[in-house]
């Protein structure tokens, strides 16, 4: 093996991260669907030829789960010797295709230098399609695609593309988004070949190995700073799409510079709330890195000191044919309980719970010309209060970080009018530092459409820490008298739908909040004088 000094490693590491960021920009800018071009629900990464993540762009942590799965599944089905330059694999199946739910389509292209496969360009994009389907099991959730060659040695496999597009509700967006994904990978291949030409392939690969070792060292250094012991935490996971409240729990055991995360949860359910093991892993990698050391490089090395277990066949580690479309809701709670357990290990360094949701609204209908439209959006909420400051209001938390769709783009593309988009007064948990505020979105429907919402924290709250209070729950109002809803609804023109997302938990005893901060919150209508009186014993 080529030995390599720490400076060259840093230099090549910078080049790798600029390659994956560049891929991401190309994907967003060339794409057509609102979910990618404005909401940026996509991710890009480089893998080494053993299938380890070399570098992931800072987009959506959830997608790390998709990336982990694709290469083992390609290698399971294809002989490496048969893989040629210009082959492009696509897949989306949670069990066989390397994704974590069917709308995430993963594309992987091998990178060859001097006839040798040295790395993989991989990206995933959430295609907003497969709407208005069932979620009893995965066969209801859309077309399942194992890794297949969409391009063979650079040649488009038209029959495969045709098969896929016929199963899509908005084929015009799909084909354009696939082209954008292709464009991103092609760019990556070119850039990696240039990098190898410059430094030598051996050196680039050696730097890749070293970057993983480096991430591992940083993760170990971070874990070693946590006192040894076992820290347990549990929380309620609820969803408007499932009748029962469920309990998720974790025991985190820290021994020296290693960490074991042992989860427990109920058996998998006949709903899209289940997660496959790689989703659980992505949730753990995100949450542990965020608490232990946010600067650790997002590559495979950070996983080495971590052991993650959950009962097979449970909602946290489901088996075929469990449905998985809405797995992110459960993944958000996994991140919450990791945060809760680590708060016991290193009090004063961990924030209170954020809204813990990825509230999703899906509208779909038929346009005047007969074509189908599908609009998916996810709505942020309050962030948890930090140990020395208030939580952030109206943000995406944990495993997602998608943008909103500008109102002026939404109303242009879909028959919907957004009447209100605002922070929710009184939604944040009180405390010395209060939580962040949740979001209210109010839509007016302009043409008949089908609608569903995927919400959590419908009967539980984001918890506070060190005496801080819990935030307010999710609230749904369908404008027809219903405030609870499972499955799909038919909406009529003029109907008004309201979604209110949860506020974040507070941090520290409310009695310690400064008078000045309380007065400012009242002046800004963030809380009422009554709330101030009740929570902070405040009087003017």
């Amino acid at each position, binding site marked *: 093996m080529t030995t390599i000094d*720490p400076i060259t490693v840093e230099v090549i590491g910078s080049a790798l991260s600029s390659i994956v960021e560049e891929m991401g920009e190309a994907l967003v800018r060339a794409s057509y669907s609102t979910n990618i071009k404005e909401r940026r629900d996509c991710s890009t990464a480089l893998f080494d030829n053993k299938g380890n993540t070399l570098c992931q762009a800072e987009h959506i*942590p959830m997608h790390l789960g998709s990336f982990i799965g694709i290469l083992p599944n390609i290698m399971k089905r294809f002989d490496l010797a048969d893989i040629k330059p210009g082959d492009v694999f696509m897949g989306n199946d949670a069990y066989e295709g390397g994704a974590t739910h069917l709308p995430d389509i993963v594309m992987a292209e091998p990178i060859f230098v001097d006839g040798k496969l040295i790395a993989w360009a991989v990206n995933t994009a959430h295609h907003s399609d497969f709407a208005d389907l069932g979620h009893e099991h995965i066969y209801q959730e859309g077309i399942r695609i194992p890794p297949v060659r969409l391009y063979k040695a650079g040649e488009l496999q038209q029959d495969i593309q045709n098969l896929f597009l016929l199963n899509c509700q908005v084929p015009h967006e799909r084909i354009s988004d696939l082209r954008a994904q292709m464009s991103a990978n092609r760019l990556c291949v070119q850039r990696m070949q240039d990098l190898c030409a410059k430094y030598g392939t051996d050196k680039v690969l050696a730097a890749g190995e070293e970057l993983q070792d480096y991430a591992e060292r*940083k993760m170990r250094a971070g874990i070693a700073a946590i006192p040894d012991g076992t820290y347990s935490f549990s929380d309620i996971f609820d969803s408007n799409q499932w009748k029962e409240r469920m309990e998720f729990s974790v025991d985190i055991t820290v021994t020296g510079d290693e960490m074991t995360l042992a989860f427990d949860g109920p058996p998998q359910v006949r709903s899209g709330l289940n997660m496959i093991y790689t989703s659980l892993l992505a949730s753990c990698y995100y949450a542990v890195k965020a608490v232990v050391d946010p*600067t650790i490089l997002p590559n495979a090395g950070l996983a080495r000191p971590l052991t993650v277990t959950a009962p097979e066949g449970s909602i946290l580690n489901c088996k075929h044919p469990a449905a998985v479309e809405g797995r992110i809701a459960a993944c958000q709670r996994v991140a919450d309980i990791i945060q809760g357990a680590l708060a016991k290990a290193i009090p004063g360094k961990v924030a209170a719970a954020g809204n813990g949701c990825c509230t999703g609204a899906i509208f779909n209908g038929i346009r005047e010309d007969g074509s189908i439209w599908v609009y998916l959006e996810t709505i942020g909420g309050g962030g*948890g209060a930090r140990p020395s400051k208030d939580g952030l209001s109206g943000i995406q938390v944990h495993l997602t970080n998608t943008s909103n769709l500008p109102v002026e783009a939404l109303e242009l593309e879909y028959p919907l009018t957004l009447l209100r988009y*605002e922070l929710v007064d009184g939604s944040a948990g009180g405390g010395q530092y209060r939580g962040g505020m949740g979001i209210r979105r109010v839509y007016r429907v302009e043409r008949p459409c089908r609608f569903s919402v995927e919400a959590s924290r419908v009967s539980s709250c984001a918890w506070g820490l060190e005496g801080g209070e819990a935030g307010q729950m999710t609230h749904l109002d369908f404008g027809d008298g219903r405030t609870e809803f499972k499955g799909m609804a038919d909406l009529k023109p003029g109907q008004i739908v309201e979604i209110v997302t949860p506020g974040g938990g507070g941090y520290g005893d409310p009695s310690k909040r400064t008078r000045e901060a309380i007065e400012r919150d009242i002046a*800004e209508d963030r809380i009422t004088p009554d709330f101030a009186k009740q929570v902070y014993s405040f009087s003017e």
Partner: protein
Amino acid sequence: MVWRIGVDSGGTFTDICLFEEETGRLEIWKLSSSPDDPSRAIAQGVVEGLEQVDATAGDLGFLGHGTTVATNALIELRGVKTGLLISDGFRDLLELGRQKRPSLYDMNVDKPEQLVTRDLRRQVPERLKSDGTVDLPLDVEALKKEVQLLGEQDVKSVAICFLYGFLNTEHEALAKKVVSEMLPDVFVSTSHEVAPEFREFERLSTTVVNAYLGPVMKRYIQKLRERLDEVGLKVAPQLTQSNGGVIGFDAAANLPVRTVLSGPSTGVVAAQEIGKMAGFPNIITFDVGGTSSDVALLQNGICNLTGEADVHGYPIKAPMLDIHTVGAGGGSIAHVDSGGLLKVGPRSAGAYPGPVCYGNGNEEPTVTDANIVLQTLNPVEILGGRMKVRRDLALAAVQRLADQLGLGVMETADGILQVVTANMAKAIRVISVQRGHDPRDYTLMAFGGAGPLHAARLAHELDISRMIIPLTPGALCALGLLLTDLRADFAISRLTELTEESLAAVEAGFEELSVQALDWFATDNIPEDRRKEIRTVDMRYAGQNYELSVTVPAGPITLDTFKKLEEGFEAVHKQRFGFIAKGEKIQLVTLRLEAIGEVKKAQLQSYPKEGTSPDAAKIDERGVWMKSEGDFVTCPVYDRKLLKHGNQISGPAIIEQMDTTSVILPDMTATVDAYLNLIVEIAQ
């Protein structure tokens, strides 16, 4: 004798560049800035500069000024108390932004400070639809109540932004009228005037930044004008905008948001002109200061304009030169992180205490310290002898880092430069490879106090084969002010398809922009033979939301124009994304018109050719540590002032001048051209 003056007012120094139109004489003057009131140093500098050349204020034909007043007020949050009037239901849009958290993994990172507090964001019942028609008429009585409330809160400025205000300006204009009547002393900024473009949050953010900075800029300009009057200035001063052009003081006072990149933009303009003169139109600029590096790409002598950028956390939609900044400069601090890798920046030792070698108590080694240790920088004194340095302190600091890394002290010093060079290269990749340009096709122009010091390594890193180091690298921004035109940008969002049916709409759109430009030409007294208009249109495939800018050929808008636009769009799309979607509908999104008032620019003097030997300029020799040798290599040291046209210097060599030090590596040859630029060729 008619003198033209460029004044670049920075945080540390105010640079004055004087140019005499007839003789081509060019002089530079530098003095310390007066940050509490920048106009003081500017007026003083103008007087001192003129004294230097035995001229008086009456001899002045032009005064151009680049300022960081707007930028600094934004960074330091020294704007005014600002109120906002916004469509009912959208009070929190400013705080929600695009709903993303500012850092993916670090929950302690905050959103940028809100420039309008929530109690001053007032909602107005009104609503337009996506086609610009009225859904809910504006409730004037409710509006008046809100305006009165803002008045009671004593706001100094009001931003007005309604949904679709860029499509139908009626409601915003009405609100502006009401505010102006009720609060006559308040600065008003409307979204349709500041940034008439699609995407409400970015338009709102720009409008708010403009309102927040408006009174600050107005006050500054007023004061500066008074001071310049006092010293007897007869000409109307001009101010640089982020687009690199200058504009009259009045126009600048109304649109301060267009001057947030005023500082670095004129450096790019100067690079543009010097590149053309030297015969190298394809340039990557590399402007390195104490805490950051600004880089830009010039293709065929032109730096692209970008319509939007994130400035200190605030999205701003305004025409700006596409300048990318990275936190890597001479003062950037080197450290070893918990995983054992060497990192440099973005933390900087600043001007004070500054690098370890300044001896002001900083103990963490910086990039400058690494240069002192390697002796690429003069290890005894810098700034042309104005400042002594302590190499012993720098060496000890780098040694501490070397011990942590398990490397030798010289390897570590060299490593600091390698890492910072990689960071700089990353910035250049953003503006080159990420936009589809191969940096190897470009000449690297290095300026700023530390650009010429790092350019040679950067050229190697990017496989660039030629560099230019201009004559006055440290005062290039001031020089740029004398090389730029008057410029104003006008835009109008018109979503149409590239088909025959939209010919009339596009024609009418450009006609409207022309009328606005005409108005500006007249206000700024630009003679007809100096007027120029450049038209571009932002295009995309129907379905995409990011546009590519395509130039509109001169002449009337015809089907042939559309055909050329289609070809132009396809060429750019292919370059950026590697494919063309034949048969897909192409949309026109925003029509733009850049109005230019050509000014008589400084013509740099050329000198007769002399011999190739640079020996007469050689002032010293010193050992400079080179990684290739693993040891100190004796290098000749030249004085830039003494170098003549035609002189050739083979690397390794060091060239010193008051405002910078240039490094020529062993495989490089520098030639002095007729304008006394150093043209450095690198053997491949």
